């Protein structure tokens, strides 16, 4: 921490040379100065790179601006918003996104929590296997989406063959990413494969934070393992689980790379998440105003939902 070093030596020398009452005053001023010094860079960065563009995007959403054509932005009021909210296809995309987020969360919670409970039994080698399970999370979602297209290829990929091996169905009789029925589940599958370790990790942290004496007291009270799970484990893990769900829900809602590289939103538009529609509008059709309006709508949705959710989370924590 070079910054603090430089400031510190200065402060040291000043501290040594000042008399006690002055030193006390200097130290007191330093506290507030330090607080601002420590917080300011972060806030400045966030303002510049997060807030300023957000405000700019809001402004753009009221225009018909197209970033690839010359000419200034033309104010068109709420036309973009009306277009978006009355577009049937876009509502379908929202529905597809909701389906994706919901089932991903359900699977991740069931499998993640289950794994955490199992790992918490501390069998031999559990540290090693935990690290192995973490691997999918460490890949780039874009790269994952890309190589899963190879794995899902009915003819040349192993996935269909494996299913065929265990169930007797012919490998080339179904396609995971090419069929209208299966594709929405395929994206759920790959997203779950990739991010369940994250939920597992947070649940594991939650489980580890439960002090042993609570269980010992329950043992003394002769509570059954099921009872213990229900009244001790679950309530104490719940805040952690809810936090994991919050992060994962937000992430799945804005997920773009994985799905775009896996299915391109296809077949047709059956896996076209709203983020894909947004990218196409913003960076392929260059309908900047429209895309900004869509982005604002997405942000408001997430912000509102997260607000409600965090309140619920706090309430749960107080129990």
């Amino acid at each position, binding site marked *: 921490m070079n910054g603090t070093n430089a400031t510190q030596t200065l402060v040291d020398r000043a501290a040594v040379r000042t008399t006690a009452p002055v030193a006390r005053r200097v130290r007191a001023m330093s506290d507030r100065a330090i607080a601002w010094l420590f917080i300011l860079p972060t806030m400045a960065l966030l303002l510049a790179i997060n807030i300023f563009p957000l405000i700019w995007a809001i402004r753009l959403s009221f225009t018909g601006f197209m970033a690839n054509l010359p000419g200034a932005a033309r104010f068109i009021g709420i036309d973009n918003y009306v277009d978006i909210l009355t577009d049937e296809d876009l509502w379908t995309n929202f529905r597809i996104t909701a389906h994706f987020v919901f089932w991903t969360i359900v699977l991740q919670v069931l499998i993640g929590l289950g794994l955490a409970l199992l790992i918490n039994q501390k069998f031999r080698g559990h540290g090693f296997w935990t690290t192995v399970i973490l691997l999918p999370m460490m890949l780039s979602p874009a790269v994952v989406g890309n190589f899963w297209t190879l794995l899902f290829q009915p003819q040349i990929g192993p996935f269909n063959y494996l299913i065929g091996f265990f169930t007797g169905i012919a490998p080339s009789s179904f396609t995971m990413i090419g069929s209208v029925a299966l594709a929405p589940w395929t994206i759920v599958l790959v997203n779950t494969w990739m991010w369940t370790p994250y939920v597992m990790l947070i649940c594991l942290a939650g489980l580890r934070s439960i002090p042993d004496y609570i269980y010992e007291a329950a043992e003394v009270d002769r509570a059954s393992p099921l009872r213990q799970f229900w009244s001790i484990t679950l309530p104490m893990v719940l805040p952690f689980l809810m936090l994991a769900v919050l992060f994962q829900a937000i992430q799945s809602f804005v997920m773009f790379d994985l799905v775009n590289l896996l299915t391109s939103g296809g077949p047709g538009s059956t896996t076209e998440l709203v983020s894909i529609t947004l990218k196409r509008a913003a960076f392929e059709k260059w*309908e900047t105003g429209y895309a900004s309006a869509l982005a604002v709508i997405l942000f408001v949705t997430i912000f509102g939902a997260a607000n409600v959710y965090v309140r619920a989370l706090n309430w749960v924590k107080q129990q």
Partner: protein
Amino acid sequence: MRMSRTTLSLACAAGSLALALGAATSARAEGKSLTMCWAAWDPANALVELDKDFTKQTGIEMKHEFVPWTSYADHFINLLNSRSTECDLIIGDSQWIGGAAENKWYVKLNDFFDKNNISMDTFLPATVVGYAEWPKNTPNYWGLPAMADAVGWTYRKDWFAKPELRAEFKAKYNRELEPPKTWDELLEVAKFFTGKEIDGKKVYGAYIFTERGSEGITMGVTNAMYNYGFDYMDPKQPYHMDGVVNSAGAAKGMDVYKELFKCCQPPGLTNAYMSEGLDAFKSGEVAMQMNWYAFFPGLAKDPNVGGDKIGFFKNPAGPAGDFTQLGGQGLSVVAASKDVDDALLYVKWFAQPEVQQKWTDLGGASASKAVLLSDAYKKSASYAPSFVESMDMVKDFWAEPLYVPLLLDMQNRVHDYIVADKGTSQEALDALVKDWKKVFKQEGKNPS
């Protein structure tokens, strides 16, 4: 804790070392150079070889910036839009001409051509219209035809020659098993081959484009639709699309493509474009393959399926037309370039007949009449005759400045109908006309 501190400081050290190295290596070499931008595929490698001659002649170093097809349009249109000086020369897609001319991305070449006696008559007319002119059919040139390309078909000549298959086909269809000349024949041959066991593997009749993300399925379906009556607009009434885009013939064309997809496309290829076709054909999965002529030289040389095993035929005709989808690109000078004069020098060099001939020899595809219409060329490779024929019957997609939304709308509607089974072809085309009218209104045109 100590170990992690060490690891952290090691990470810091690695980071700062990397930063220092990065800064050092990014210093550019001095000396004259031009940057040529194109898509990353085999012909691009041939261009690298060809450009060595230019460097030898003029001492100007040629640098190349090749971007994969999937991000080619996004990347370079972005670049051109922002007046980046990164590319001096660009071999841009035929679709970009409208935008390039109206937004002055390219240098207009008329004066340059006149001064240097470069005549557009030395190139095939379709390539001049497709790669150089905007507005279309007017003598305003924004590029030099560089890479002539169109959609064509390959087929397994060795399979077509198998006596037992020939006998079976003749018995069933009462004609010889030959490369199809119409889409009806194409369907018959494709259905014939689908499901057969050849060389120990189950094979499929035909591979066609189905890619969703950029332009794939559109570049495929037009080959059927053109020949059943589809057109972009009324030739006598600009931007009049009602009844032209969504005519009954156009819908039938789309149905025929869908039928071919459903019956005879290998499983899983629902989002496939150029590379998957090459893979499918090379691995012996399909009897016939739709793809760009640009790949045919490579296929002809392939150790597994090339040589005598491969044959080529031009896009089959339909009841209402005999067209094939135009591909290819033109060579243009980027207006924002800092070395426009040197870039023009390159264009002059590239236009020379000897260079055009060498370009084709190395693996490119010259659009020059002298090269393509020569007897030597027709005999030089098995795909040459059908290529020359194809270049005479090409039709291109919109090259409007706003071609991207037009293309994306068509991608959406076509893929929805053909792969996702949504609605009927007529409904898809009706919706497409609505989409396109909206885009043209944005451009300020008067669609109907």
